[in-house]
């Protein structure tokens, strides 16, 4: 079967299990196979900029806009969002459980020097975390290697590490719900508007990369932001919890 | 070549007569029987010389006596008991192709002595003595594996001698030695023998067999075809194979040994 496109995406999206849910529906309808390459956000954008992919599907809005501005992408569309949460050990050493104020929670973590595991990899998630830290006024990276641990890894690896050392971790909700190694960690902080996580989709620019399968890729982009695609995304649930909230219509 | 000077008779007259013997020994590899039904007795304090054509099985028989190969049939008795690890420690063997460690000449001797628990000053003394006897003193620090063929042979004999075994198994020890070294080694073997060391030795040199043998055992095609006192076998060989060997003729028949040839 020769009709396929390559989708450059991120590990957190792949790890959430979303693609296993929506791609078969798309393929049934169009006969187009979507081949997902799931790597770090930066690597995904870089790969797409090299022309090694037909569609980019990540969650780093400013970087995506830069990608389009540099002519690598045709146009970016919002697709869906979910939110970030701070998970922590059940005994809650920083005493932040139940808080809805992420900035205050982080301030308490810094004050109590409770361990905090950061991805430290310039990913979308990491950028959100850094924004929150700067709102606290605490220079967490100064404590790097002490209570503040930069794992320099993907979401899953950071969760594995953070959980094993009893640390707080900022993660996207989808990955967390789908994560198999939760240990005794639970969600400590959620519901802060600053922990909003927007996903976007962009067709790689065939004018820049002539071999890009613009037609097939466009079909995928169109489908994802169509009512049908959006409904399929909304339909993805684990244990009754919805993981992603489609918002293509709202923004586009 | 002159006969070697006679040595005093062995001082161990009270020891049992037979040091090692085989009974109906057979050995095979890859489906062939290479040693067939060999029964031989090696007398204590005597020098037994094994002769026979290339491929007759002389080296295999030495290996069997030394316990390096497991017999396929028959048995080997050392002082009347089955051959064991202790028996091998009382033997020393010089292989047809010297096997030397990738070390200096002296280190090769040191290694063998250290295995037998000799160390320190005693070890140094015996290394020096062995080097002296093998006339390898000037090569003590040379890597053993660049020695000439004859020097390697001498080193490997010196190594065996320095272990003070009860039985010395020698596989063509002087094959690549010059005439002077040959005589010297023969003298050393005789000297050891005079101190009570029993000798089993393989040679292709009829002259050497004459000089060295108390007993002769003649192998042909893996079988023992003739054994007896050296004079008798060398001057009056009974088997056609031994006759042929002594006169330098080829003998190819596969024969069954005449009855009653066990030594």
């Amino acid at each position: 079967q020769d009709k396929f496109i390559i989708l450059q995406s991120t590990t957190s999206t792949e790890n959430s299990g979303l693609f296993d849910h929506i791609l078969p529906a798309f393929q049934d309808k169009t006969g187009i196979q979507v081949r997902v390459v799931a790597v770090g956000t930066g690597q995904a954008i870089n790969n797409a900029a090299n022309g090694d992919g037909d569609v980019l599907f990540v969650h780093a809005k400013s970087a995506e806009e830069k990608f389009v501005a540099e002519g690598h992408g045709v146009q970016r569309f919002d697709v869906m969002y979910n939110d970030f949460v701070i998970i922590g050990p059940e005994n809650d050493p920083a005493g932040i459980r139940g808080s809805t104020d992420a900035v205050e929670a982080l301030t308490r973590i810094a004050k109590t020097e409770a361990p905090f595991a950061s991805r430290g990899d310039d990913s979308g998630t990491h950028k959100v975390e850094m924004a929150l830290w700067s709102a606290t006024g605490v220079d967490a990276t100064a404590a790097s290697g002490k209570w503040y641990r930069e794992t320099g890894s993907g979401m899953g690896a950071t969760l594995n590490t953070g959980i094993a050392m009893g640390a707080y971790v900022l993660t996207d909700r989808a990955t967390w719900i789908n994560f198999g190694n939760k240990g005794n960690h639970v969600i400590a902080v959620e519901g802060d508007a600053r922990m909003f996580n927007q996903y976007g989709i962009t067709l790689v620019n065939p004018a820049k990369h002539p071999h890009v399968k613009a037609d097939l890729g466009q079909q995928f982009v169109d489908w994802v932001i169509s009512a049908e695609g959006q409904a399929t995304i909304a339909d993805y649930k684990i244990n009754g919890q919805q993981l992603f909230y489609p918002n293509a219509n709202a923004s586009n | 070549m002159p006969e070697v000077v006679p040595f005093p008779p062995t001082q161990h007259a009270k020891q049992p007569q037979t040091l090692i013997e085989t009974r109906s020994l057979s050995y095979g590899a890859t489906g062939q029987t290479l040693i067939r039904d060999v029964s031989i007795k090696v007398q204590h304090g005597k020098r037994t010389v094994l002769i026979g054509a290339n491929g007759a099985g002389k080296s295999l028989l030495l290996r069997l006596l030394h316990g390096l190969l497991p017999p396929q049939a028959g048995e080997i008795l050392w002082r009347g008991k089955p051959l064991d690890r202790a028996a091998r420690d009382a033997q020393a063997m010089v292989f047809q192709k010297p096997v030397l460690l990738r070390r200096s000449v002296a280190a090769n001797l040191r290694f063998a002595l250290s295995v037998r628990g000799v160390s320190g000053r005693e070890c140094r003394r015996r290394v020096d003595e062995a080097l002296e006897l093998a006339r390898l003193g000037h090569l003590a620090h040379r890597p053993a594996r660049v020695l000439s063929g004859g020097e390697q042979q001498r080193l490997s004999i010196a190594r065996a001698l320095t272990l003070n075994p009860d039985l010395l198994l020698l596989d063509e020890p002087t094959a690549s030695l010059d005439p002077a070294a040959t005589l010297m080694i023969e003298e050393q073997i005789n000297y050891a023998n005079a101190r009570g060391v029993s000798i089993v030795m393989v040679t292709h040199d009829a002259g050497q067999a004459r000089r060295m043998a108390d007993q002769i055992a003649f192998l042909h095609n893996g079988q023992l075809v003739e054994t007896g006192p050296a004079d008798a076998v060398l001057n009056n060989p009974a088997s056609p194979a031994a006759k042929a060997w002594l006169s330098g003729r080829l003998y190819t028949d596969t024969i069954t040994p005449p009855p009653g040839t066990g030594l």
Partner: protein
Amino acid sequence: MSGFGTVLWDAFGLIIRADKDLLEIIFLSLRVTLTAVIIACLIGLPIGAALGTFRFPGRVAVLVVLNALMGLPPVVVGLVAYLWLSASGPLGVLGLLYTPTAMIIAQVMLVTPIIAALSRQVIEDLNTEYAEQMESLGVGIRQRIMALIWDARYSLLTVALAGFGRAMAEVGAVIIVGGNINHVTRVMTTTIALETSKGNLQLALALGIILLVLALGINAAVMGVRATAVRSAYA
């Protein structure tokens, strides 16, 4: 998690209920790895044999580089292969990125130095024995290399198996050039990495054990063939 024992026990359960997807992944793993190792042997053994046999100026420098290349980081190999095969790279027109062929190429780059460096040592040891006789017979370069490889073949099997082990266990390079695309370039190791990142440690371990069982099977087959050959032959 109630401890290592339980995890291992769960893992064994998963091995038995092997399903179609898993078989596909296993098959691709074997195809990529075995192809890569065979190619690496075809390239690496003659290079190793030549270096083990002939002296030339600068030989020691070549050996140092070759030995160091055994420490080629898979990620670096993956990156270099990626930069060559990428659409904007020199070989982009071939369209090999994110295909099993790309994974084979990356593994060949990774394993060839290992095969060459280890076989160099094995052949050199044999050559110390053969050298003068070969010189004396006037054996030509090619014939001499072939003869040494042939006569050292049982020892070289271990070298090939070392290369196979490295290729089979490798993930860093193949994930970059293969992309770990489901049903296309997903192999055992990339699946294990994926499941680990999902926190499914049991599943990851189970897959790891399956991978080891596969490696055991290949090794047993190779040693079996070897034993049969040795029995009827020329030690």
